């Protein structure tokens, strides 16, 4: 068979399969379409013609087409029929009226004067988009009628219509178009994209709202923005798109999710100024889900409710804002099968350069000499023999050994190699791929969307062989059972499997677990001993050996969600929605450790690597159930044409039940067969936790709009939570917002085409915050380290912070020949602990100019959080435990968001482009009340403190002589003798010594505020353009102002101890020959030089090309031949370029070194629609 023949055969099979699929789908439609009511029951007195027709329309499946001017309005009839055929009723009605009716296909009835000849002709037409490509699924209706048809995959429709009928053609995202039909000639209709962003409908709490009518601070982004390129998780795609939605990618490790924050810090968490300590409430299709567990391809839109007025409807979990994620639903029209897939290769954005063995030995011995000369930290230095052999190895690695027998222990090697561990661990690009197939469509009454997503990512640490996989099947069906009842079911499953080395469990060889490069891997240590065994010898962790030999950790998670929803429209203007959701999250995480031998000189057995010994299997199981019930009714109407009213009242109830259990068995019968039952452990460990939590809320919202100009919204919610004691379970959250559509005013009439929208907004609201389990406010939830959401806290202290409990643990002492089990002392709880409250005031401006080509918005906000749960007043340590938290602190912050979007066409409409600029800032949060720290200690919050501020010293260069160094009393900073090359700090208070004073703001010694680490002025810049079949997108993101204090060992050589490995950057250290070095003299644990100080507060501002995508859509000529509607191929680069003044060892986006780095990647993808 020739190649061509083969091709055609394949293609025929493909087409046959697709045809079969389509037939199946259309049959489904037919079934769903099956209800047709042709009988009616009417009891009308003195009803006019129109009233009768309307009544029939309501009860039956018929629709009428007529001219209002031409039907008899004066004739009144009495009708009393029981279950009568419509045709009979109409016959009676029309008799002697001078009118007649004609029934067309689709239950359409045309009423005309009796003398008019109705000719019904089949009309065919094609609907095209602005580029001339067919638009499948566009709705074609006869004007005035409720029914119509939809275009097929070629954009073609067929409809029987009476003469001179007007057709209305609509398609989401395009301007509506009307066409008058006469004759049977085929027509062609071109739709142009709707520029009217103002008519967009935005998802809001428990409903939708026209964007033009919004009064709160709400931002939204459509799924298109994130589906045009491959992204790891939703956070990855959202980063930088919505001003003041701060996305923290946390790390580039497979399976680690993003965390979110809206508008900065709104609460205090002791010991941290991390932005993500306050997470917004994240709802996916109305239920609280981990956004990292959904397939980004399924997202239809993301809305962020930023101010209290918008989020108040969600009450006590919404104090930090709300993210509403809506997933895709089916749309009416022919079945559409889409595939998108991509293949990506990625590697770390930044890799630290570590020193080679030469610099390492020099610095190590220098540090040791410093210790010896000054009575500081000393250890056994490298000997002359070490240096000599290391130099020989560096010069010629193949001829010289990387280790020789240790004179102190002849069985062990002393290492003299030269290993670049970074290159060994992260040698190249890691692959990643995703595939998504979805089928959607629908008839008039039923729409469906079914999909299957698959994602696979391999870890960057090659020897770890980590594979992370995610499967996301989902199905969504909506059906209108009849005119007043719709039913909606939504099922989705996320299955995750993550296979990685078990060393994660024991935190040894740690790169795998968050930290990506542990200390203790000196360049002198080789990967393999000269005799070929893995190097290591117990002193160090050799991650290559551990990854290879120590067992695996396989985590499997299933997150199943099902929602059933009933939508009732019992009368006009009223909609009632009730839904019930059940979620089951189960996890099974099994890890096993296999002991392995370590070998010394010439392969002599040394010992068993300790940290994976004895052999063991641990199993962690989680079984969480969540149910939620929502019921709400909305009434919407316009009175006297000018008074628009929308009222909502509803009820929400949620229940969470967590069950965790874990077991651990040691001493496996066969260490390589990790089955928990096969052990000889006399006392396996079994543990578990079970908690539950509940929430109820009643809410109401009222919108009033006068004449489209003056907008008012009032919200209220009454919440009850199981987290608080009986006398304090309930709280109320009110909010109000107003708006003024200036553009609608009469005086703006003349410039309506220039100023399309101009709206002023203001809002105020107060929300309680129940996400305050003790101090924790932890977001490190339970969903397998994916940075899960706050309300997943599982321990008793978090769920019942007002109830004291006695923790159970074991002591390392044998009682009855077993480690003693003990029930320990309960901590102190505060009986008065209550809800924190967040008050937000927001002022906003929405604008749209020049025919909507230029639009955007600006918001300014002030946040105040009152009664924050913090440590009570510090008490003397004689109390013996932590003081219970109290509602004792207030903080305040303010900020703005700004966005500007320009879109236009050029080159005769062939080039379409848009540019969007966003900019956002939140001020440093200021502590306005804090009574727990009367001494103004710097180790606690203080009134007037700006979160993120850094106290430190002023660097005045180096001491140039030992005498100079010892003339100043530095003993408070470090007790050793200070030497030339140590840092000279400014004696700010002039007392002749350098110290911390009392470490209080009142007496800070020689410290002062040297800066603030809060990032400011985040910006995003995106550019989209399409020309002919090409499309191009690029997106820049960055921070204009950010200071970073790198208090870590990569920065300060040997900061912690002798086991820290210096980076190449730290080789620029002080010596008498290099007196102007960037870094001081090298010391082990040189605490004196490592004080926070102005010189080392680095500028971490950056701009980064987050994304750059070039796409090409196959011309219709080719795709048509392939019998597919649309095929787009693209290539995307992510994080490819970064502009920053920060040293290249750091990624400015995840400052802090010891984190698994973010990836830069290149992807190739394809999107096809059948």
């Amino acid at each position, binding site marked *: 068979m020739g190649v061509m023949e083969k091709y055609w055969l394949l293609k025929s099979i493909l087409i046959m399969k697709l045809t079969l699929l389509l037939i199946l789908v259309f049959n489904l439609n037919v079934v769903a379409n099956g209800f047709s009511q042709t009988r009616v029951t009417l009891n009308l007195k003195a009803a006019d013609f129109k009233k009768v027709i309307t009544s029939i329309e309501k009860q039956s499946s018929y629709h009428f087409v007529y001219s209002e001017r031409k039907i008899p309005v004066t004739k009144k009839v009495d009708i009393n029929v029981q279950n009568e055929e419509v045709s009979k009723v109409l016959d009676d009605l029309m008799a002697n009226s001078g009118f007649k009716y004609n029934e067309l296909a689709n239950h359409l009835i045309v009423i005309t004067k009796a003398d008019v000849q109705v000719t019904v002709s089949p009309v065919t037409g094609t609907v095209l988009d602005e580029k001339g490509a067919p638009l499948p699924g566009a709705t074609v209706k006869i004007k005035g009628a409720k029914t119509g048809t939809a275009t097929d995959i070629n954009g073609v429709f067929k409809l029987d219509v009476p003469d001179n009928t007007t057709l209305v053609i609509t398609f989401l995202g395009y301007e509506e178009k009307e066409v008058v039909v006469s004759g049977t000639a085929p027509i062609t209709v071109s739709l142009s994209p709707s520029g009217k962003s103002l008519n967009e409908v935005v998802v809001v709490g428990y409903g939708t709202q026209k964007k033009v009518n919004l009064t709160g601070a709400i931002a939204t982004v459509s799924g298109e923005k994130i589906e045009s390129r491959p992204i790891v998780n939703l956070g990855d795609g959202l980063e930088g798109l919505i001003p003041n939605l701060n996305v923290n990618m946390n790390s580039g490790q497979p399976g680690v999710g993003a965390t979110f924050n809206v508008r900065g810090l709104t609460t205090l968490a002791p010991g941290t100024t991390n932005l993500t300590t306050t997470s917004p409430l994240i709802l996916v299709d109305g239920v609280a889900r981990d956004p990292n567990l959904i397939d980004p391809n399924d997202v239809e839109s993301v809305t962020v409710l930023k101010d209290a007025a918008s989020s108040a409807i969600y009450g006590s979990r919404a104090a930090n804002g709300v993210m509403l994620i809506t997933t895709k639903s089916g749309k009416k029209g022919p079945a559409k099968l889409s595939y998108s897939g991509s293949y990506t290769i990625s590697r770390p954005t930044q890799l630290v350069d570590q020193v080679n063995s030469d610099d390492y030995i020099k610095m190590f011995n220098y540090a040791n000499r410093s210790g*010896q*000369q000054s009575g500081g*930290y*000393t250890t*056994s230095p490298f*000997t*002359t023999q070490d240096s000599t052999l290391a130099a020989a190895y560096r010069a010629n690695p193949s001829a010289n050994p990387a280790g020789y027998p240790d*004179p*102190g*222990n*002849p*069985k062990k090697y002393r290492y003299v190699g030269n290993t670049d561990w970074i290159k060994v661990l992260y040698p190249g690009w890691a692959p990643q791929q995703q595939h998504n197939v979805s089928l959607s469509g629908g008839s008039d009454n039923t729409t469906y969307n079914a999909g299957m997503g698959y994602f696979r990512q391999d870890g960057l640490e090659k020897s770890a062989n980590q594979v992370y996989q995610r499967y996301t099947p989902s199905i969504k069906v909506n059906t209108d059972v009849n005119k007043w009842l719709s039913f909606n079911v939504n099922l989705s499953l996320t299955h995750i499997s993550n296979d990685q080395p078990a060393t994660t469990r024991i935190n040894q060889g740690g790169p795998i677990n968050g930290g990506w490069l542990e200390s203790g891997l000196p360049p002198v240590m080789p990967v393999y001993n000269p005799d070929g065994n893995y190097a290591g010898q117990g002193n160090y962790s050799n991650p290559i050996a551990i990854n290879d030999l120590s067992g695996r950790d396989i985590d499997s998670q299933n997150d199943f969600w099902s929602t059933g929803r009933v939508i*009732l429209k*019992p009368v006009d203007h*009223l909609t009632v929605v009730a839904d019930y959701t059940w979620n089951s999250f189960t996890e099974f995480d099994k890890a096993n450790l296999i002991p392995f031998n370590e070998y010394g000189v010439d392969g002599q057995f040394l010992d*068993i690597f*300790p*940290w994976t*010994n*004895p052999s063991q299997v641990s199993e962690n199981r989680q079984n969480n159930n969540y149910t939620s019930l929502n*019921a709400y*009714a909305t009434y919407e109407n316009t009175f006297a044409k000018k008074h628009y009213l929308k009222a909502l*009242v*509803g009820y929400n109830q949620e229940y969470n039940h967590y069950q965790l259990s874990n077991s651990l068995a040691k001493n496996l019968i066969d260490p390589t067969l990790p089955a928990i039952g096969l052990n000889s*452990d006399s*006392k396996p460990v079994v543990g578990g936790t079970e*908690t539950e*939590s*509940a929430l*109820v809320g*009643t809410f109401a919202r009222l919108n009033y709009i006068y004449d489209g100009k003056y907008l008012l919204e009032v919200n209220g919610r009454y919440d*009850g939570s*199981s987290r608080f004691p009986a006398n304090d379970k309930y709280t109320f959250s009110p909010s109000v917002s107003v708006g003024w559509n200036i553009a609608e005013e009469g005086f703006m009439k003349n410039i309506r085409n220039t100023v399309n929208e101009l709206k002023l907004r203001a809002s105020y609201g107060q929300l309680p915050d129940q996400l305050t389990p003790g101090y924790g406010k932890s977001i490190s939830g339970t969903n397998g380290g994916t940075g899960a959401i706050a309300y997943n806290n599982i321990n008793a202290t978090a*769920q*019942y912070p007002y*109830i004291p*409990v006695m923790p159970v643990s074991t*002591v*390392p*002492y*044998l*009682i009855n*020949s077993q480690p*003693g089990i*003990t029930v*320990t002392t309960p901590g*102190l709880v505060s009986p008065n602990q209550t809800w924190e409250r967040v008050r937000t005031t927001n002022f906003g401006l929405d604008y749209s100019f020049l025919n909507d080509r230029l639009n955007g918005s600006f918001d300014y906000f002030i946040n105040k959080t009152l009664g924050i749960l913090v440590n009570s007043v510090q008490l*003397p*340590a*004689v*109390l*013996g435990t932590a003081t219970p938290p109290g509602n004792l602190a207030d903080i305040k912050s303010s900020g703005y968001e700004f966005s500007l979007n320009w879109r236009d066409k050029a080159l005769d409409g062939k080039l379409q482009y848009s540019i969007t600029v966003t900019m956002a800032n939140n001020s440093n949060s200021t502590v306005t009340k804090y009574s727990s720290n009367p*001494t103004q*200690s710097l*180790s606690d919050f203080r009134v007037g403190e700006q979160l993120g501020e850094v106290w430190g010293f002023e660097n005045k260069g180096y001491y140039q002589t030992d005498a100079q160094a010892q003339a100043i009393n530095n003993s408070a900073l*470090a*007790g050793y003798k200070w030497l030339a090359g140590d840092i000279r700090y400014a004696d700010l208070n002039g007392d002749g010594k350098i110290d*911390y004073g009392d*470490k*209080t703001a009142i007496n800070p010694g020689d410290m002062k505020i040297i800066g603030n680490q809060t990032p400011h002025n985040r910006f995003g810049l995106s550019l989209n353009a399409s020309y002919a079949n090409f499309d191009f997108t690029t997106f820049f993101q960055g921070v204009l102002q950010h200071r970073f204090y790198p208090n870590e060992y990569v920065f300060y050589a040997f900061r912690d101890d002798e086991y820290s490995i210096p980076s190449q950057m730290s080789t620029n250290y002080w010596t008498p020959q290099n007196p102007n070095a960037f870094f001081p003299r090298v010391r082990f644990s040189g605490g004196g030089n490592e004080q926070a100080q102005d010189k080392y507060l680095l500028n971490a501002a950056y701009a980064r090309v987050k994304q750059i995508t070039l796409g090409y859509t196959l011309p219709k000529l080719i795709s048509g031949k392939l019998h597919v509607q649309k095929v787009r191929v693209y290539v995307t680069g992510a994080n490819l370029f970064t502009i920053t003044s920060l040293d290249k060892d750091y990624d400015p986006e995840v400052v802090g070194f010891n984190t698994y780095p973010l990836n830069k990647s290149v992807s190739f993808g394809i999107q096809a629609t059948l």
Partner: protein
Amino acid sequence: MKSKNIIYIICIFLIAVTSCKRDSFLDRAPLSSISPQTFFKNETDLQLYCNQYYSNLPIQTFLRADDNSDDKANQTINALLANTYTVPSGASTGDIPGTGAYSAGTATIDGTGTNWNFALIRACNFFLANYSRAQVTDAVKNNYVGETLFFRANDFWKKVKAFGDVPYINKYITDTSKSYLYAARMPHQQVMDSVLKDLNFAVDNIPVSPSQPGRLTKYAALALKARVCLWEGTYRKYFANAGDPTPYLQGAVDAAEQIMSSGTFHLYTTGNPQKDYYNLFIQEELQGNPEAILPARYLPSILTNDIDRQLGQNGDGYSKDFARSFLCTDGLPYSLSPLYKGDDTPDDEATNRDPRYPQQIATRGFDLLNGDLITLPRIGTTNTSTGYQCIKGRSNSLAAWNAGQSTYDFFIFRYAETLLIDAEAHAELGSCTQTTLDNTINLLRDRVGMPHMVIASLVKDPKSDFPGVPVLIDEIRRERRIELGSEGFRFDDMHRWNAGSLINNPETILGMKLTPELKAQYPASQVSSIVVDANNYIRVYPNFTTRVWSDKLYLYPIPTQEITLNPAIKQNPGW
């Protein structure tokens, strides 16, 4: 009409669900946690609670012990004795490094109480406020009250040693107990009187046979009482205005002799003076060992420790001063004995010395690990800083050397210490007779084959550390130093004897003699960086020739923050 009805139903439904408070739905209580209201109901509860104290037992692990004394000169200089220690800002939970506080796997060594931490005190007081509701007999209750008071007494004693006067909290307090929270420090004497009262209750109420193997016994309580009383008694004697020493010295004698007269305990011996002492500290099982008043036990796969391995590569070493203090086999100090062969070589130095010398210091032929025999002291390596490598508790077993896999047991209270307490307390009271010595010190000497200490023939060592002290006390102190080497008593002893100035002796930071001839026997590169003094003794700290004692070092500084928080607390003198 149908639709109207639906509205009515829905409205009624909405009003119904929204109007009522759902208290029953919201009332949730912990499902897998223990509440204090329902606890303390039977003996098991009392036991389970008291078990938490046991992680605070003073286990003698040899590791880093005595680094802060004249016995050792670790590679890293002791910050306190080098006078480089700075006042901590806040109360931490960890003890100060170098005070014997060290965590090695599961063998957590509770240090000298230098951490201003009152969690254990609170745990004890919480028990005392709640135990009485248990439905058990008074005798059972008092057993656990006794355990509680044992630990509370030990903790306060550690605090007194570390800080002098301390706030004395003997009641369960909460954040509102202002009078306790902001109290001034209670004077040392008064605290110790309360400590003694607690110990006496423990002695009187803890039974001889424990309710579960491993729990405290009456003898453990007596052993602690003897230790505490000797410390406080001698402290009062050697410090001015410290109170009457007699009741404490007598208390030490009484407690020690109750243990001795019980007949339950003996020194461990197999009749091999060259091995028994060394072997005693590498026992797989001390339960049932006649010398163990209370052992800390370790069992394979159940509870293991990491000490054996670390002892081989700890970078520490005994000081020259410690090595000199061993008697010669004729019972005379090196300064008097004709048997002393000098210290030009390590072999000479070990010749004719107390057999405990080679059983505590690695000498030629010592098997460090599975046949790795020591020839020359392993200076210039991580094994030892001074050449006097500490080997107490260090075995040659590969199995025990595996990280975290050692199951050698440790002593918490060793009978030998009790004997030494009895002798010293008698001597301080002036009641030490030859019989006393024969029942105590001479039993220790018999085990290692050393001649008896005979009062009548004692000669004052011209090089004595304590020239002003009567020869009997001087020699009892020497015996204590040798027998209890590396067991963590030395700084406390220097403290109570008011003998901190011992560290001024330069020999306390010198190592072995490294003559050019000896040095030539090593690979040059291994010892090239070793510095020696004019007499060829290794200088462990090249930049320090002597340390200078200051009396402020007897007491640790109180964290700055505690003084700021409670103005009634004043800093210790000199800090």
